[in-house]
């Protein structure tokens, strides 16, 4: 392999790389959101049983899936930081947490707004909903624990432990609709195929990609600030600030 991947695990190199990537992800996200929303609202047909209210899924499903996936990525980064003592991994974990928490919150909020007209209740203590709420609390716990410890390296280690232990919740959320008799419906798009209208699928995929690009853009921007903050006493940051003047 010609590429030295370890090179990018150095915060100084990654800082520059992330800076180049952010505009690409930001613009992709904007374009994908525009296309995704257009298909979701103007192309996808009205649902036979849920009328127009079903259109909430185009935001609900992508943010819910990402709220789980971001947690796994965050826990993986935190674990790498804990095991290999790599600063950048821990910084990535810290940068992902706020976005993950916001996505979990949007998932719960849009779910409530869908549940009220469809189930007749904003909230029920259903396995899917409860485990997603726990996910939100895990994110908040991670953020609170990390910020409550002054020494950043110690904060990384403590928060990593919480993230790793909490990751057991993600498969519980994912499989909750199979393991328990939940009010929340099961997956419509499965590996074995789907009965969903093709325009609805396209809308979902575009919105999913848009959210992905958004998460990349926002996390990379956030981690760049974290890198500068935590590396402020290093030579490369003073050199960088000298150039910017």
């Amino acid at each position, binding site marked *: 392999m010609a590429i030295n991947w370890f090179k990018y695990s150095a915060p100084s190199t990654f800082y520059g790389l992330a800076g180049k990537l952010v505009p690409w992800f930001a613009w992709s996200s904007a374009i994908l959101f525009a296309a995704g929303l257009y298909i979701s609202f103007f192309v996808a047909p009205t649902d036979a049983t849920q009328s127009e*209210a079903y*259109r909430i899924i185009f*935001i609900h499903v992508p943010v819910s899936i990402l709220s789980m996936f971001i947690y796994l990525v965050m826990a993986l980064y935190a674990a790498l930081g804990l095991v290999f003592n790599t600063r950048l991994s821990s910084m990535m974990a810290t940068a992902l947490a706020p976005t993950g928490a916001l996505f979990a919150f949007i998932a719960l909020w*849009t779910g409530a707004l869908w549940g009220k007209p469809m189930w007749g209740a904003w909230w029920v203590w259903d396995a899917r909903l409860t485990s997603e709420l726990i996910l939100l609390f895990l994110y908040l716990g991670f953020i609170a624990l990390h910020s409550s410890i002054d020494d950043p390296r110690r904060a990384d280690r403590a928060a990593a432990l919480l993230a790793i232990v909490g990751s057991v919740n993600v498969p519980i959320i994912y499989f909750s609709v199979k393991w328990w008799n939940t009010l929340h419906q099961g997956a419509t798009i499965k590996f074995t195929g789907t009965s969903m209208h093709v325009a609805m699928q396209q809308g979902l995929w575009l919105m999913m990609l848009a959210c992905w690009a958004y998460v990349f853009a926002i996390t990379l921007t956030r981690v760049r*600030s974290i890198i*500068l903050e935590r590396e402020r*006493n290093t030579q490369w940051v003073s050199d960088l600030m000298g150039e910017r003047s």
Partner: protein
Amino acid sequence: MSEFFAMNGYAFYVWGSYGLALLIFIIEIAMVRHKRKITLQQLRLMRDAGEEGQE
């Protein structure tokens, strides 16, 4: 047009969902940009003070 916004009686639920998501995205983008501005400002102050920053 008004028919589109009415969402067949589900306007509150549909626009409530997308409205909050949009609001959160806007706030998050603003916060991340603000953090970058503040961080660079602090680094400039550190550099101008010409001393090693205190941990």
